[in-house]
């Protein structure tokens, strides 16, 4: 080692890099990886937060699959929600952004209007929707009545409670819309001009140019909203007063998990539940990633 030059350039740069990302690494280890590993370990115990944590092997998992009376109900509710809400909101966001991707005077106004609901979030919105969805006096059924349709009992009817939530989610497609809009704006005009010269109509242009060019964003949107969909909790917790709705129709996986953790204080069991959910989401995401090369088109040919 000679005097001044302590490190060669590469080591120095590497170290600096680590120092720069240190806050994230610490955050990840302390707030994400640590709790993650802890919950994995505790899922094999009867942990109840305060007084016990004895190793009980696979019992929590056995009970979940074989004996639990609501595990399958809650999983079904969640799958139902994901299976409908993800495609509907994705298609909704694409159609909306296609409409808003026009050069018409005042378009900014409409973009703002449609994006606004995505800015609002949380409990306030759910309470608002509970009023909108009131069977007798709510705005939704009032409007339906103008067209002679007797609206359903929405949140009070087990057959309509989940559709009501999905319907509510459609209101906030603005977030996805923004991504699609940005990506549509990035599509080269020359592609459309060439297509027009070849005699393609608007629909053909949309299907053959717009959609393929935005597939990376569609892919991103599907992956993230799938993960988000499995985590649905707040909506059901607020809109059913934490009860799970009529005939447990809003008892989603995470709501049931929450009840096990904070009502029955069976934290080990709840942690086992969270790992099952993790595996389900993980597998689905892997499948998504494997399928992606077949339909996702990246400009420039690179992956």
């Amino acid at each position, binding site marked *: *080692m000679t005097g001044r030059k*302590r*490190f060669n350039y590469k*080591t120095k740069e590497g*170290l600096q890099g*680590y*120092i720069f990302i*240190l806050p994230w690494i*610490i955050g990840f*280890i*302390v*707030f994400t990886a640590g709790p993650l590993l802890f919950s994995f370990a505790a899922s094999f115990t009867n942990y*109840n*937060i*305060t*007084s016990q944590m004895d190793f009980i092997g696979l019992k929590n998992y056995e*009970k979940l699959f074989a*004996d639990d*009376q*609501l595990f399958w109900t809650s999983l079904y509710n969640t799958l139902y929600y994901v299976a409908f809400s993800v495609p509907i909101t994705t298609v909704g966001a694409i159609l909306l952004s296609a409409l808003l991707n026009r050069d018409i005077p005042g378009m900014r106004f409409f973009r703002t209007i449609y994006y606004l609901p995505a800015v609002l979030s949380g409990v306030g919105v759910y309470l608002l929707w509970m009023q909108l969805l*009131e*069977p*007798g*006096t*709510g705005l939704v059924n009032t409007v339906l009545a103008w067209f002679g349709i007797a609206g359903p*009992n929405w949140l*009070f*009817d*087990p057959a309509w409670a989940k559709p009501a939530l999905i319907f509510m989610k459609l209101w906030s497609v603005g977030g996805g819309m923004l991504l699609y809009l940005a990506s549509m704006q990035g599509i080269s005009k020359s592609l459309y001009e060439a297509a027009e010269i070849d005699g393609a109509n608007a629909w053909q242009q949309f299907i053959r140019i717009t959609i393929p060019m935005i597939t990376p964003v569609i892919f991103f949107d599907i992956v993230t909203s799938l993960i988000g969909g499995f985590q649905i909790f707040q909506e059901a917790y607020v809109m059913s007063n934490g*009860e*799970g709705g*009529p*005939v*447990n129709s809003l*008892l989603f996986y995470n709501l*049931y998990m929450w*009840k*096990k953790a*904070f*009502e*029955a*204080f069976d934290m080990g069991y709840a942690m086992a539940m969270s790992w099952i959910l993790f595996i389900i989401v993980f597998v689905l995401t892997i499948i998504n990633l494997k399928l992606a090369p077949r339909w996702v088109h990246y400009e420039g040919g690179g992956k």
Partner: protein
Amino acid sequence: MRHLRWLSILFITVLVLSGCNGFTKGDSAAKDKGTAESDGKVVLDFWTFWGSEIRRPIVEKIVEDFNNSQDKIEVKHTFVPWGDIWTKELASIAAGSPPDVVINDINATALRGEKKQAENLSKYLEKDDISENFYEELWNATLYEGDSYGIPFNTDTRVLFYNKDAFREAGLDPEQPPKTWDELWEFAEKLDAKNGEKYERIGFYPLFGAGTDVWMLNADKVNFIDEKDEVKVNTPEKLDALKWLKSWHDKYGANTINSWQSQMESQQGNPFFSGDLGMLVQQPTFYTQIRDYAPDLNFGVALLPEKEPGNGNTSWGGGFVAEIPYGAKNPDESWEFIKYLTDQEAQEYWAVKNFDNVANKKAAESAADSEEFNDAAKTVYGLAVEAMPQTMLTPTPIVAPDFPTLINPEFDNVYLGKKTPEQALEDAEAKVQKLVDQNK
């Protein structure tokens, strides 16, 4: 090897930073949280969810009075929102630095005792036994294996409010509220007013303001899981209650019920205020809504009607306890404060200012005669005090804390017409029994 030094600096930085994130508890936490301030007082952190314009000043006045009444303890009130308070408390217990006194749900007190979330108060009660001050049912709910884990603070019950003018209009004696389930039905028929197929006034619907479980409790006075951990869901009386409730549901139909229910939720628009609902089961505190939104309403109150003569006017209530979270640093001082909080003076102040039922019997009785109440308030409060000895709680059974998730859907199925009451209760009983067996 200079770069070793670099690495060690890095390592130390990591340690220091992670230290901030709570790896060190115990000592440092105790120093911030409580114990000696400069003037030698012990500082207690008191958590409640009472942050409303009405309740916050009242609880803070009680705290202030306590602080002025002695010179050893200084209580600081912390408002934590309803949705967060108990999960935050739980996390702080697990972290070893809980608050000193917390207001918590009375029904799950024994469960918290069993899980070591709350301190056992027996050693304090041996010295000064204050158990006689409270309603027996409330006191019993705080016991786990004979030891108390929280002291009852406030409570509630369910009583029948009725519209005297509507009674007169329907040809009923406004001083004779219904006494039995049959009379409820009979009076409601008279109070009903229809315009064609559409109801303009409905006499009574038992599930506005009370759940299926309340009427089942009223009928057989036994909880779904009794104190011996035996499942008592499918009993003849509970079946009668469910059939009776179903007949009400059939009488008015889902559409009428939903439309009344949604108006009920919008406070000012409550159909009871406008006379569109003849009778309503509510907590006594409902009086404050009448006072604020319908001051001219001519109403009466009565005990919850009984299933048949002699069965008893059993009602249902809940409430809150003041307790010391497990691992709190100054339990002796916390106990002093809890004693003050649940003693007659503070309780009476709370009762009168909030128009709320309190757990301390003497405080409740003297509040009923308070000079601050007008005649209507006195009548309602007096009736609430009368109802208390017949009011049952539904303590969370340790063998099946989350059983309501299993039985409520069965009741829903009955009202939706998907199951007969017999079938629903049979299924509910089997499910609860299975949960109990699993947890035993």
